[in-house]
């Protein structure tokens, strides 16, 4: 009945030589390939702590405009943690602390005068488990624009636009007033995407959006992401390497390095490059091992 501590070291590190480096040296060895020409967000020396636990160490990333960036890596390496920092959802985790900078169009979203609520209005998020509100489909979509005080001429049009944008309109147009809980898992997840689109964000963060879905629903969402790319910048966490290869323009590979004394596993960025480059010709041995399925 007793639960194991979350920091159990079940998997072992692949490369022995990496263990001899300190984490600071290691982070300097991140391989940063071709960075996007036009960026929307950048992280600078991003470090995240949960209480005393150093969860993510010195991450430097650049997210390209109208690109899909995939974050991959073994479980517990801090992908979700990095993603939650990008729209300040980590503010809601008690004890979470962020160091470094995250620049969004040149403004540090962790700057002193920044309002996290305003940040989230520009940078939306879709979660791993579909989480529609216990309301009608229509109200699920209309909720966001209403609460953020968007000027909307015709809410019906906006709802339709958002549902079309999430490739859901044809399936639900006759039951807009019905509860969102009656939809299938895949439909619920597309509803959550539609709800995010409705507030017209700039960037959309997705944390393993397909992990609770079957292959057909997954394929639909992948198609949808490729369509959405022309309007939004998308950052997606995924455990599915084929998915990263299929949809993303750029990929960042993270790993977790255990501390010799405490055994705590701190996440760090190993390699960041164009997806094609990273998958066909990885520069780091650990990336190669991971994408070829030898580790993780």
């Amino acid at each position, binding site marked *: 009945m007793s639960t194991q501590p979350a920091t159990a070291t079940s998997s072992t590190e692949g490369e022995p030589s990496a263990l001899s480096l300190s984490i600071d040296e290691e982070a300097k060895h991140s391989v940063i390939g071709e960075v996007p020409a036009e960026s929307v967000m950048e992280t600078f020396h991003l470090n995240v702590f949960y209480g005393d636990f150093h969860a993510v160490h010195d991450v430097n990333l650049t997210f390209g405009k109208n690109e899909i960036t995939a974050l991959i890596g073994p479980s517990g390496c801090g992908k979700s943690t990095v993603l939650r920092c990008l729209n300040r*959802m980590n503010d*809601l985790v008690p004890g979470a602390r962020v160091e470094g900078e995250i620049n969004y169009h040149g403004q540090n979203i962790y700057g002193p005068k920044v309002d996290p609520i305003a940040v989230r209005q520009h940078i939306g998020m879709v*979660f791993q*488990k579909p989480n529609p*509100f216990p309301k009608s489909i229509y109200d699920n979509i209309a*909720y966001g624009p209403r*609460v953020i005080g968007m000027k909307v001429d015709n809410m019906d049009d906006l709802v339709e636009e958002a549902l079309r944008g999430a490739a859901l309109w044809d399936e639900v147009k006759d039951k807009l007033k019905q509860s969102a809980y009656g939809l299938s898992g895949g439909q619920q997840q597309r509803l959550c995407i539609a*709800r995010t689109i409705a507030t017209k964000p700039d960037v959309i963060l997705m944390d393993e959006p397909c992990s609770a879905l079957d292959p057909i629903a997954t394929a639909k969402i992948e198609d949808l992401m490729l369509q959405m790319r022309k309007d939004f910048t998308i950052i997606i966490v995924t455990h599915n390497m084929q998915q990263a290869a299929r949809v993303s323009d750029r990929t960042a590979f993270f790993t977790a390095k255990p501390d010799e004394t405490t055994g705590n596993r701190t996440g760090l960025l190993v390699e960041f490059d164009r997806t094609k480059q990273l998958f066909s010709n990885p520069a780091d041995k650990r990336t190669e091992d991971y994408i070829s399925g030898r580790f993780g």
Partner: protein
Amino acid sequence: MSTATTTARAVTTSTIATGKSKDRNLASLIFLGVLWFSLFFGVVVLLALIIDTAIEGSGRFDHYLFTDYEKSIAHEQAQKFSELRGIPVEDLSNHFTGFRGGILGSLWLMITTALLAIPLGIAAATYLEEFADSSTWYNRMIEVNLQNLAAVPSIIYGMLAAAIMGLMGFQFKGIVIGGAIALALLILPVVIITTREALRAVPQDIRQGSLALGATVWQTTRRQTLPSAIPGIATGTILGLSRAIGEAAPLIMVGLAAVQWDPTGFTSKVEALPMQIFRMASSPQEAVQEAASAGIIVLLAMILGMNAIAIIIRNKFQRSW
């Protein structure tokens, strides 16, 4: 040595195979019997209580029970009944004493208590669940304080209510607002604790979904969390009110006394059903005892009704996320 091991293993295996064989010996059965007895002891006592009271009060299930004030009967009626039943006129008022004052008073008290305790309780619970950082010392102090308040003797709440009424400048405190303050103070911790449980049952996903859209914490609370928690809050609050309606001790301290009229406002002098029962219960007169028994059945019926409403709300609306 090896034989012993084998036997032990054989025993274990046989126990597992035959399931409950080891639970079938005399001691175990007696033990189980004791457990069963304890489980149903309460029901037996409750049945005895209800049956005994119902029999004792059976003579008084007439409309005077609801229409008459304590010891009130119109003079011409009294004459008629006196002849009819052969009871001296001066004794008669006891035979026709009723709970009109108590029933109406308790309803007034309950509604006023609800008006005071529900908004305050929900507000406090909302702050503690949705806004407060539970790691700070003063929020932890509020938590411990609430647990303590939930166990303060009810009669002490009556003393506080009397003091508050004094501060508000009321000379006579046995009025609707005085009783309601006492009862509201009493059930406030219950309302807060059950509301917090209801809020906690709303999944974190819902809040995150709302906040990720750029909603504020209050918008999220008001438009997502609180509406989702309403069935739980309603159930807990009704149960709290059903406790308030049966309480007499705090009302004694406020000084509720018998009345011969219906309450008309928050400052009306008021009576409560359990207070009436308390006064009548210690009376030596048979007729008054009989009326008290009937009054208890009325009170129990009111409480049962409120509990039934709470259960219906829970079964009908509660979402099992």
